[in-house]
């Protein structure tokens, strides 16, 4: 019962945080510098790890599917399998997981520290809503950067699969054939669905991380606990939401 109360309280505070942040949307143009800074932290600094991870995810996907599909004589369809998998599922989910691990943890740690060391209270004392300068720029930044990160991840994953198909001996599928089947079975609607999913996941990760960080009570130990809680909650929400969003977008 205690845990249920905690979960409901966390959910309620997150919704309130979202509503309070939306109430501050009018101040966003005046916070362009903060928005740019958050875009840099969320997007630019995350780009390398997204590219590396997506490249190897696409490569491993091509390797596994090539190993299995070669037995059926259908290896020319690896392109379609990798293309659709990266576009509709793995690209958005893996980028969101990376975002939770790298950005969500940083956000929750930063906000938890500010909360623990009463910087947030100082803002409130100065009649500055913390949602305005701490949450809204991050939410706006993730909305801007998440589609870009996801699209780059998808494309890098496609090329990773193409390289594996070309240079792995038992697959030996030309890039032309790989991309021909990829283009045949992958539509821009699939890319659009993937970007929508990524947008939802990124928004939820940042919102949950902000909420957990701002609701931290105690000292430095609780800061670490908040980070762990933010990452775990984000991962769970990503996978739970993935099912429902996928079903809604089919």
């Amino acid at each position, binding site marked *: 019962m205690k845990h249920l109360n905690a979960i409901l309280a966390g959910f309620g505070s997150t919704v309130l945080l979202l509503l309070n942040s939306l109430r501050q949307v009018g101040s966003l143009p005046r916070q362009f510098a903060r928005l740019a*800074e958050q875009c*840099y932290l969320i997007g630019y600094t995350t780009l390398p790890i997204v590219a590396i991870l997506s490249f190897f995810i696409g490569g491993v996907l091509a390797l596994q599917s090539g190993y299995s599909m070669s037995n059926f004589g259908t290896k020319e369809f690896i392109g379609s399998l990798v293309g659709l998998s990266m576009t509709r599922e793995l690209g958005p989910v893996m980028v969101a997981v990376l975002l939770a691990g790298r950005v969500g943890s940083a956000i929750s740690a930063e906000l938890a520290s500010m909360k623990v060391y009463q910087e947030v209270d100082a803002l409130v004392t100065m009649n500055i809503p913390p949602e305005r300068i701490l949450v809204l720029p991050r939410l706006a930044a993730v909305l801007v950067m998440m589609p870009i990160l996801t*699209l780059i991840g998808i494309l890098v994953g496609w090329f990773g699969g193409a390289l594996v198909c070309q240079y792995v001996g038992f697959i030996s599928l030309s890039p032309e054939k790989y991309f021909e089947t990829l283009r045949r079975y992958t539509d821009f609607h699939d890319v659009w669905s993937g970007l929508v999913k990524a947008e939802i996941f990124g928004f939820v990760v940042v919102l949950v991380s902000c909420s957990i960080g701002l609701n931290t009570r105690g000292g430095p130990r609780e800061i670490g606990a908040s980070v762990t809680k933010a990452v775990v909650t984000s991962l769970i929400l990503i996978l739970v939401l993935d099912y429902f969003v996928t079903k809604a977008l089919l």
Partner: protein
Amino acid sequence: MNSVQHTARVGLLFLLGLALIWVTYEALGSKSALSKTGYPIVAGFQNLKALKQGDDVRMAGVRIGAVETTQLAGHRVEAILRIDKKVTIPSDARATITSSGLLGTNYVAITLGTPHAAPLGPESEIRTYESADLGTVMAQLGDLGEKLEDTLGAVSGAFRSQDGQPSLFERLNQLLSDNGNKIDAVMSNLESITNKVNRGEGTLGKLVNDPAVYDQLLATITEIKDAANEARGFVTGAQELVAHVKTGQGTLGTLLYDEKATADLKAMMANFAQVSEKLSKGEGTLGKLINDDTLYTDAQATLQKADRALGAMGDSGPITAVGAVANALF
């Protein structure tokens, strides 16, 4: 690193993202991009199968366009094909819906047509034909299976006894049982014959086992073949001769096929008959000469007189020759 640099990098990343979105849209939506540049033609079918917007249009296997849209049009369905403007399709080219494989997608395949045919213009309709899809083939296989099953059932029925009538196997068994002794005798005879042949006995055995007999037979056959060739040449010559005669050429041909000559011959034969009849009757000079020996006797006497006169002329000289001749004659 100041915030200006951060902002610049964010802006660069944002522009890169927009560019990637555009590139991805163009790459995956090239079907729609092509549809804006080419010219449309209409292809009518009875069934579009699983053809959908964006599927390829290929001429002899080369992609030349895409399916722009599909629509119902009365009692048929139409596919509007957007063709690359660089490609001209002859008016006698034909389109059909085919599949790139068992798991492949459908596409519209267009034949090359003839090079001298007029090209199809925008909005014109291309001739089409229906091709059998996998479902049709499977249905035909099902029909074939039913027919095969019926045939096997009939064969199976022939092997079963029905209405008290013995089956085919029973009849065969009965036949073998009734004629077992005869079959044994036939088999024994066959065995004896083959043994003799194997031992080289008899004409067939020698022919099989003795190479000399075989050589002789081969030589005989060769001679017969030569004789046949000669006979063939003779017959050919005879045929040519008959043909020559039939054309009325040569003496025999003229005699047989020239009506005037035939009439002349008949007249001549009639004259001969008359002459011979007169001769036999002793009419005329020649008849009398043949039948009456008086002339011969007279002639002989005259010759004797002439002989004597000549003798006398020799003795009395030329002066008296005329008188001697006249004396002898008169």
